[in-house]
């Protein structure tokens, strides 16, 4: 399937910025590991729901697809993505806040 010529083709057609993006990706993973090691187990659930809300960042992409002047089908997909990502983002941050307030009350 994937012989040498296809591989070179792949490499050749790779846009210049993608190495930079890959670098950012790998470095960000390291940052993630560094800041999240040693989370107290008490906060595992809020950390999970809070980081889950952050993964709703796809919303940015959804907004671009829903609002751009492109094929109507792409707009429709964008709209559905906006709904899903907003549920994820709004629901995620709100429920995390609700949980964390419970942890704080006793201070």
């Amino acid at each position, binding site marked *: 399937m994937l012989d040498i010529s296809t591989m070179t083709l792949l490499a050749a057609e790779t846009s210049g910025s993608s190495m930079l993006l890959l670098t950012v990706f790998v470095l960000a993973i390291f940052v993630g590991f560094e800041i999240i090691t040693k989370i107290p187990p*008490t906060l595992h659930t809020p950390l999970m*729901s809070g*980081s889950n809300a952050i*993964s709703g960042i796809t919303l940015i992409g959804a907004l671009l697809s829903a609002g751009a*002047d492109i094929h109507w089908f792409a707009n429709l997909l964008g709209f559905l993505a906006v709904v899903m990502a907003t549920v994820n983002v709004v629901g995620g941050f709100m429920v995390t806040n609700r949980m964390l307030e*419970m942890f704080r009350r006793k201070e």
Partner: protein
Amino acid sequence: MSSVWIDLAYLVAVILFVLGLKGLTHPRTAVRGNLMGAAAMLLAVVVTLFDQQIVGFWLIILGVIVGSGIGAVLATRIAMTAMPQLVALFNGFGGGASVLVAGAALAAGDSVTAKDVIIATAASGFIGAVTFSGSLVAFAKLQELDFIEGISIPYQQWVNAGAAAVCLFLGLLLVLHPEYDTLYWLMAILALGLGVSLVISIGGADMPVVIALLNSYSGLAASATGFVLSNNVLIVAGSLVGASGLILTRIMCDAMNRSLANVLFGTLAPSGGGGESADEVYANVKSTSADEVAMLLDVAQRVVIVPGYGMAVAQAQHTVSDLADALIDRQVRVEFGIHPVAGRMPGHMNVLLAEADVPYDLLREMDDINPTMGQVDVAIVLGANDVVNPLARTDPNSPIAGMPIIDVDKARTVIVIKRSLSPGFAGIPNPLFAAENTLMLFGDGRAAVSDILKAVKEG
């Protein structure tokens, strides 16, 4: 707004995400950390609206209103005991959004030409679809929806491997022929099936691992979408979440002494011929009454309560908190011993006890409490089973051999509150229930604790 300003604002958002996530790792800073995350998201959304690509706002406004409404209602109405399934559901939506955004980028056509972008599109669709369907199955299982029970897929490992291989093949075809977007949707549909098949056979007690892993996937899907759109804020935010989910996954696997592969693909080996049958193990079980427990508590100086999923099922957290308060009023030292995988998601017990106003400094980690278990007068096990089974220490052939447990059996007296002698998730008898120093209090968790509380107050 020019794209430089948008990129600078994205950079600020990324910094806020990192600081916010860091804040979430300490109880004191957690509320602020979460708000920083939310602020970062708001900033990223608002500046995106200034992007020149965006010409129509109606779909966006409608989508945001509908999504916020659903999200807000779910987040405010849900019971704390239902938190695992809610997180699973939100997680699935994040994954689903990634599939749709990558699909939209493909359908929009012209911007997507470079091979690396198509690879990212395929990855985004694949990971996103597995996250979406896997999370929905996890939701259904946690919500205990009937239709999901007992479904099993024949030759499951082969089905999974086959589906993954075909997805890879379709993804490769798409990279070579990006003009056929049907390939993308075929791959996404097949990946949905793969997500279902991967999660459907995973049992309740392994759910903490699965939820943590799906959480990680939803981050990676967002990152992949970031590669499609060449957008740093998606890449960074997604990879932070991916890393956090992986760390939680590893913590959960360690707490069960099992590898990730074993949780995902293996089944717990049935106990070998050497294991004793339930009847032999339970020959000398002693049962007790609430009054007797109250008398024991009356003379106790140190009490440790070990909750498990049964506490969540019985909604007993408030009653337990009241009992702890009553004992503390009587100068008893009360602590909670929390096993990392107790419950259905990482930190599940902690959230329930926080809801019931138990101060978090009374919640002790397993490694913290085990060395002092010998000085505990009364250990109360509430709806936990495998995580206190001493066979994990003593029987090398047991399916849970080597799993770290809370050593309640070392306490002077152990009270086990449980409906019956039925086995836990591992399906093996628990010799703790028949131990010399154990008394069983049979009944519903909340009713039993409430009876003890009444007896303590009268005594």
